[in-house]
């Protein structure tokens, strides 16, 4: 091999090796479309407006046939109370199905804590539900392909295929999934998919008198919800888990997780 030939081949190898693998893959139009389909549902919670009435929970349980007396719910409202002596309390009695009708904090296991009226520093209510993440941990772990993310951004459970193993319930960082006591499958918020497809708002959005819960299509730039998410200061829950939640919160405190 001559010196010139050797150098030429060396350069060819270096150039060839420096081309990234990703540059050689063909662009799949289907994949590009998936990143930007027409509709992408997102939820917006304004924690400043919530008064903890629990009408959303009542409407959700009624609309979606979740038994009232079972301690499971697709959505719930949490109460946060900070005392002046720097203690923090969180509770959600019966998922706030009947609202917050007592000032004492439910500590669980039948224990309650009455907080002195003058000791209450700040207090607020935070509605919670499934975040319908862009990279949902729950659908990743399903061993039978029973739970999935739809193209318009909703995470659903296929009741005929779910075997009730509970992996998804454990995988969800937000505790948004539960075992349905009657259907005997994993269950979760569907964003009221049946209502959305009929052009109706989801039951909780519909029931909220204070407009603390709203829903919109974040791929439509003119949607009022998208406008708020783009222009105002909103946060998501447990961002560090990398699940890319699609429920956005106005007025999020760091204790709310």
């Amino acid at each position: 091999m001559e010196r010139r030939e050797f150098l030429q081949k060396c350069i060819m190898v270096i150039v060839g090796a420096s081309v990234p693998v990703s540059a050689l893959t063909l662009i799949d139009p289907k994949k590009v479309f998936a990143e930007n389909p027409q509709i992408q549902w997102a939820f917006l919670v304004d924690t400043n407006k919530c008064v903890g009435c629990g009408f959303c929970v009542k409407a959700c349980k009624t609309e979606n046939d979740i038994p009232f007396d079972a301690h499971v719910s697709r959505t719930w409202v949490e109460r946060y109370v900070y005392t002046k002596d720097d203690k923090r309390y969180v509770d959600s009695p019966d998922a706030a199905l009947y609202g917050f009708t007592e000032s004492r904090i439910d500590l669980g296991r039948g224990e309650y804590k009455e907080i002195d009226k003058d000791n209450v520093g700040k207090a607020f209510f935070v509605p919670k539900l499934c975040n319908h993440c862009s990279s949902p941990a729950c659908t990743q772990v399903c061993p039978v392909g029973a739970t999935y993310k739809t193209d318009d951004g909703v995470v659903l459970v296929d009741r005929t295929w779910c075997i009730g193993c509970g992996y998804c319930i454990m995988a969800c960082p937000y505790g948004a999934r539960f075992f349905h006591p009657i259907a005997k499958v994993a269950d979760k918020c569907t964003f009221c998919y049946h209502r959305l497809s009929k052009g109706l708002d989801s039951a909780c959005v519909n029931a909220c008198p204070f407009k603390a819960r709203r829903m919109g299509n974040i791929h439509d730039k003119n949607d009022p919800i998208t406008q708020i998410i783009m222009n105002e200061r909103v946060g998501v829950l447990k961002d560090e888990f990398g699940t890319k939640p699609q429920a956005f919160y106005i007025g999020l405190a760091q204790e709310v997780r």
Partner: protein
Amino acid sequence: MWQEGERVKSHVWRPLYVVIAFVVALLVFRFFYVPNDFGSGKRGFMYSYHRKSNETEWKNQPAKYSVSGRERMHEYCSECHGEIVKVRSEKLHGIIPCEDCHGPALQHPDKPEKLPIDRSRGLCLRCHTSLPYTTSERHRIPGIDPKTHNTDIECVECHNPHNPSLEGMK
């Protein structure tokens, strides 16, 4: 020596045939058992390996609550109950959707003919229990202590839920 060698060969091959037969049987079973519309969809195998027809099943679930938004709901209800909706929309409770107290009404007046109205004390207490949260929006709603405020009667016996101002008390 040769004969022994052949025997070694067959004892390797026989279980291998069993394994191959098992795999083939599994694939055949899978072919018939897994529905045709099972697929990954646009979001890929990791997040959306599912039965496509299940999306339609969810979409076809019957809804219970009626039209969306309190304005549209008031409009819908006032087609028949105009007077009471008018009273209500102008007063404080106008922000509450009718169905929150009157129950889901998508099929009403066909099914149910009469809505099961929740007149309970608990329903009012959802918002009107006095809680000492000055920083919350809750503070702006007039509240009572349910343990001391006329404990033995329902709220609606004195208060008019459609026109809750204290001047308009029964």
